[in-house]
C-alpha cells in the first residue's frame, strides 16, 4: 500500500553551544495539518531518513492560534509562525530552521530574551498607583484607542527582527517591536507622563537612529502592525526632543 507522505528537512542543534546539522523526516500526510502537527507526528516516532531512533525534535508553542508568538521559526527560509503554516499551502519538502537572530536553545527553540530586555529598557508599561491612590486617569479619545489597539496586538514573536537587516546577533539594536511599544505607551494619556523617559532610552546606541528604513519589519509582521508608521512617529518624537534639549533646556 502506498501512502501519501510529507517530507521535512529540519535544522537541528543539540545544545546552545554545539554545531547545527540537518536531518530529514517523512511522515504520513494528513489533510488540514500544520507545521506544529507535523512536529508532533515526528515526536511520536522520531525516525530520521538517515538515522533510526533519533532524539525527538524540540520546538516551542503555546496558543496554536497565532497570538503568543512562541512557535516562530524559519519555514522554507522565511520567518513565520509554525501553528498557522498550513501544510497544504506551503512548498514541500518543508524546510524548518530556528530563527537566526536569537540564540538557539535546542533545535527549533530559541531564546528571545533580548526582546523582553528591550521592552524593559524602553519602559513598555504605564506606571500606575504607587503608595497612594492617584485617582482616575485622563480620558482617551476613540481615535487613539483604535490606534493603540492595533499596536497592542504585538506578540513579541520576533518576525520583524528576524527580517530586519539592521538587527544582528552582535549588535545592540532594539528593533521595530520595541519602538512600536514606545509609541503605544507614549500614546496612553497616563503613559505619556513618562514619554521623555522612554524617548531617552531610544536615543542612544541601538536606538531609533540605527534603523536604516529598510521596512522589512512591517512586511514580516504577522499582526500587520504599522511598524514603519511607529518608527517614523518615534523619529519625530525624538527629533522634537532633540531640538527641545538643544534649544530650550
Amino acid at each position, binding site marked *: 500500500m502506498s501512502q501519501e507522505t510529507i517530507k521535512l528537512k529540519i535544522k537541528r542543534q543539540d545544545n546552545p553551544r554545539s554545531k547545527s546539522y540537518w536531518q530529514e523526516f517523512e511522515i504520513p500526510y494528513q489533510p488540514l495539518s500544520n507545521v506544529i502537527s507535523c512536529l508532533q507526528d515526528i515526536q511520536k516516532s522520531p525516525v530520521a531518513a538517515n538515522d533510526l531512533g533519533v532524539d525527538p525534535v524540540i520546538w516551542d508553542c503555546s496558543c496554536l492560534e497565532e497570538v503568543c508568538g512562541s512557535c516562530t521559526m524559519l519555514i522554507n527560509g522565511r520567518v513565520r509562525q509554525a501553528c498557522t503554516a498550513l501544510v497544504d499551502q506551503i512548498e514541500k519538502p518543508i524546510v524548518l530552521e530556528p530563527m537566526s537572530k536569537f540564540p538557539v536553545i535546542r533545535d527549533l527553540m530559541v531564546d528571545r530574551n533580548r526582546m523582553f530586555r528591550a521592552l524593559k529598557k524602553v519602559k513598555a508599561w504605564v506606571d500606575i498607583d504607587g503608595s497612594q491612590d492617584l485617582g482616575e486617569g485622563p480620558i482617551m479619545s476613540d481615535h487613539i484607542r483604535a490606534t493603540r489597539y492595533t499596536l497592542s496586538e504585538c506578540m513579541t514573536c520576533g518576525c520583524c527582527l528576524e527580517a530586519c537587516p539592521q538587527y544582528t546577533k552582535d549588535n545592540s539594536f532594539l528593533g521595530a517591536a520595541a519602538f512600536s511599544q514606545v509609541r503605544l505607551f507614549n500614546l496612553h494619556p497616563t503613559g505619556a507622563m513618562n514619554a521623555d523617559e522612554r524617548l531617552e532610552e531610544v536615543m542612544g546606541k541601538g*536606538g531609533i537612529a*540605527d534603523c*536604516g528604513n529598510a521596512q522589512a519589519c512591517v512586511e514580516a509582521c504577522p499582526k500587520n502592525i504599522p511598524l514603519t508608521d511607529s518608527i517614523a512617529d518615534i523619529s519625530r518624537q525624538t*527629533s522634537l526632543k532633540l531640538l527641545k534639549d538643544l534649544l530650550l533646556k
Partner: protein
Amino acid sequence: MAKINQDQAHFYLLKINSLLGLVPIGVFLAFHLGINSLRTVGPLQYQWSIDLINNMPFLFGIEVVFIYLPLLLHSLMGFYIYFSGKRNVVHYGYPRNWLYTLQRITGVLIFGFLIYHLGTTVVPKLFYGKHQFLAAPFLMDVMNAEFQTWTGRIIYLIGISAATFHFANGLWGFCVSWGIIIGRNAQRNASVVFAMVGLVLTVLGFATVLEFSLDPVPVTPTVGG
C-alpha cells in the same frame, strides 16, 4: 552644556551624519550637476561658471569646510553603518529592502568614484597651480580627454547614477528618520517626488556627459593666459 555620554554621542553622530547628507553634501551635488549642465548651453557659459567658482575668495577653505570634511565624515559613518547591518534582500526581497541595500552599495560606489574624480580634477589642478582664470581651460581639457573613451564615459555614468540615486533615496530616508513624513501615504507620495528629483539630476548629469563626448572644444583663458 552638559557632558554627553557615549550613548548620546552615538545618536548625535548618526543624526549629524543624516543632516550632512542633505546639507551641505546633497545641496552641493544638486548645484554641482546643475552648474555642470551649463556645458550643454555652450562652452563659454560653462567656462564662465568655472571662472566664477575659481575666483571666489577663500575658495580652498570653503571647499575643505563645506565639501571635503563633510564628505569624509559622511563616508566614514557610511562605512560604519554599512558594516553595522547585514543585508538580506535575498530572503526578504521587498522593494524598500532593495532600496536600503542599494543605498549602501551606491554609497561605496560613490566613495570609489569620488577618489577617481578628485584625482583627475582637483588634485592635478592644485598640483599644477591652475588657479583663477587658468582653471577653466585646464579642467575643460581634462574633461574633454576624459569623455573621448568609453571607459571614461561609463565611469562617469555610473558615478552620476549612483550619486543621484543615493541622494534621492537619502532625501526620503532623511524625511523618515527625522519624522517629517510618517504615514504610509505620505511615505509613498514622498518617494514619487524624490524619484522625480533624482531623475532630473540624472538627466542633467547625463546630458553633460553627452555634450562633452560629442563636442570636445578647448577654450583659452577668459583673462590673461
